[in-house]
């Protein structure tokens, strides 16, 4: 073959000869195949002249612009990704035990799940917290809880990720304060706060204040971290929740990178040098079912971010161009029916994340369509990562799917389709305007509804749900239940904490925070003072609720 023309001729002969002959006897399963995002999938991919010519600028080499093949020069030949299971339930005591169990099982980083009252800034004794305390994560009201959470876990030995958004400044301040008590200075702390409020409006729902004051707090945190916590990621710009809410892979990377650009712009607009904070921005994506589309998605996202940062923003430091990301396997793909099948789903999704070059990974547990994971279930999930790392061999070469005709074609198409959203959102006046208009929310709801209708019409098979069903299946998995007593216990604990502290001091610091929040000074030092004096999450958030008001969510169906 050799030349492009020769190759095309052979392909034509193949299609008209053996393929046509086979199809006449055995039609394919579908007339058209497509990815989860609806991109048509051809029978076969082969190199195009463009692909051969473009190898350099499109792909580069690992650790080099545009990072399509990975952000580090040796990837997993150097070290594996961080195995980081998102966990938290009940009170600090139970979650501390779970953390120690996971570290003991070979987990290499921590990831805190907070309960909803903590995430929305209500103390456990707030009437609005009723029924929610310690349910989807651990209840943290004050520094006393945070100290207990890290009891016996030296902060200079672990990296910790915190899924916290509206109150991110407060939980970061608590982590700093725990470090101080352990004798670990803040410039040694390693970890991440999610702190991505834009996707809360778009998909996740734990917003509190409106976009403008929220962006101000976010830029304050970015600035504070750039100066004081050089090893900390002050933002984890998240597509995961956008995907979980029902988006396609295209929408996931488009909306996430749009949000990323909005944070960068906010930082630059507040007077920061982009290269002072951009190298610490991190990302968070989902690994869904369509293995090769997911691999292409991670590769496309890396290339897009590199180009946006270098060409559009004008960042000079190559570290600012690198899209480093955490991955979680897709919770929404898990089924309550035949739940053991979820182990297999998670393994394939984790495979996609590794083939896509993730920096850290959470693998879901088989029971998560039913409850928070039990110890036995989470152990299997962690073992899945360990098997991929130590047994599968996929870690021994970088970007093993690079050059696959199919994966390269998908990578190009995902990038192209994602950029179309950039034009659309810019013409609407930017991300915040688009959020206020409900644009992202509507796009996601549309995709989610379409996906469900396909399942209901049996155009899309979900094993164990709409096909391969076990009639009269009975649930056999043990389910983790959070004890009802937990809530009463935590309510007592926060009340006791308020009695034991120096309340005059707390009021003084909260007043100070109020003044700073109305002005333009960075809020972090005042938050840190209040936290050290055992002001609660709810009290600090209340100050901000008074100063900034709450967001009024557009109701989008």
């Amino acid at each position, binding site marked *: 073959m050799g030349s492009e023309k020769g190759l095309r001729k052979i392909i034509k002969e193949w299609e008209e000869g053996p393929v046509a002959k086979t199809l006449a006897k055995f039609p394919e399963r579908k007339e058209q195949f497509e990815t989860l995002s609806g991109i048509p999938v051809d029978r076969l991919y082969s190199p195009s002249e463009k692909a051969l010519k473009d190898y350099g600028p499109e792909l580069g080499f690992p650790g080099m612009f545009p990072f399509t093949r990975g952000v580090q020069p040796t990837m997993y030949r150097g070290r594996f990704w961080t195995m980081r299971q998102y966990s938290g339930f009940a009170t600090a005591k139970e979650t501390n035990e779970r953390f120690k169990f996971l570290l003991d099982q070979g987990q290499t980083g921590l990831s805190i799940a907070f309960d909803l009252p903590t995430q929305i800034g209500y103390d456990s004794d707030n009437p609005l917290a*009723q029924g929610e305390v310690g349910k989807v994560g651990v209840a943290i009201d004050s520094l006393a809880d945070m100290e207990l959470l890290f009891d016996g876990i030296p902060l200079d030995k672990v990296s910790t990720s915190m899924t916290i958004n509206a109150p991110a400044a407060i939980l970061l301040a608590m982590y700093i304060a725990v470090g101080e008590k352990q004798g670990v200075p803040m410039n040694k702390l390693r970890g991440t706060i999610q702190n991505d409020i834009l996707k809360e409006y778009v998909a996740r729902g734990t917003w509190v204040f409106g976009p403008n004051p929220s962006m101000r707090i976010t830029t304050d945190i970015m600035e504070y971290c750039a100066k004081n916590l050089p090893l900390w990621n002050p933002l984890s710009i998240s597509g995961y929740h956008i995907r979980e809410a029902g988006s396609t892979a295209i929408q996931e990377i488009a909306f996430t990178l749009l949000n990323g650009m909005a944070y960068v712009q906010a930082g630059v607009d507040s007077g920061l040098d982009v290269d002072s904070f951009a190298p610490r921005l991190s990302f968070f994506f989902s690994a869904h079912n369509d293995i090769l589309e997911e691999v292409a998605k991670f590769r496309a996202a890396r290339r897009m971010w590199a180009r946006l940062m270098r060409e559009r923003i004008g960042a000079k430091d190559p570290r600012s161009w690198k899209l480093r990301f955490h991955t979680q396997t897709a919770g929404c793909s898990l089924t309550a029916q035949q739940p053991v099948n979820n182990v297999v789903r998670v393994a394939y999704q984790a495979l996609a994340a590794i083939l896509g070059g993730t920096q850290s990974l959470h693998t879901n547990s088989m029971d998560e369509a039913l*409850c928070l994971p039990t110890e036995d279930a989470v152990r299997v999930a962690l073992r899945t990562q360990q098997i991929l790392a130590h047994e599968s061999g996929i870690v021994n070469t970088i970007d093993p799917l690079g050059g696959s005709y199919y994966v390269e074609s998908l990578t190009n198409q995902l990038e192209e389709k994602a950029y179309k959203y950039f034009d659309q959102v810019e013409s609407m006046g930017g991300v915040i305007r688009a959020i206020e208009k409900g644009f992202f929310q509507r796009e996601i709801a549309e995709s989610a509804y379409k996906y469900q209708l396909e399942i209901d019409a049996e155009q899309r098979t979900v094993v164990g749900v709409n096909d391969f069903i076990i009639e009269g299946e009975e649930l056999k998995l043990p389910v983790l*239940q959070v004890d009802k007593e937990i809530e009463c216990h935590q309510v007592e604990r926060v009340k006791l904490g308020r009695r034991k502290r120096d309340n005059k001091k707390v009021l003084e610091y909260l007043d100070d925070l109020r003044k700073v929040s109305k002005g333009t000074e960075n809020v972090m030092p005042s938050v840190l003072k209040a936290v050290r004096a055992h002001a609660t999450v709810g009290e600090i958030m209340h100050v901000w609720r008074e100063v900034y008001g709450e967001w009024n969510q557009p109701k989008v169906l």
Partner: protein
Amino acid sequence: MSSSKKIRVLVAKPGLDGHDRGAKIVARALRDAGMEVIYTGLRQTPEMIVEAAISEDVNVIGMSILSGAHNALFPKVIDLLKAEGVDNILVIGGGIIPQDDVPALKAAGIAEVFGPGTPLAEIVGYIESNVKL
């Protein structure tokens, strides 16, 4: 009652849970099935839900919780409806609800609980056969 009267449904998200994918999908499916649907948005207290149900004169309340707060919040909605003297609204729920919790919720007055993987047609059919118009 004329058979042409449309069934009115309040789709509600009680508590602090932000998972609204399921609630929104169900809301759209009910609308596509010819019902009139009002969606509350997130973070509704039981009081807000009951007030909306009464002022919107709905026949059905459909609540969705994935955070585990269902045992505290679902029955409270029923209690408040009773206190208001309302007994003709069909109240159903869905989300991540462990099987073990279902009998107590039903005893409290939640007519049916729909778990993950429920086909939309099943929810539509249930409402159509059990609503009191």
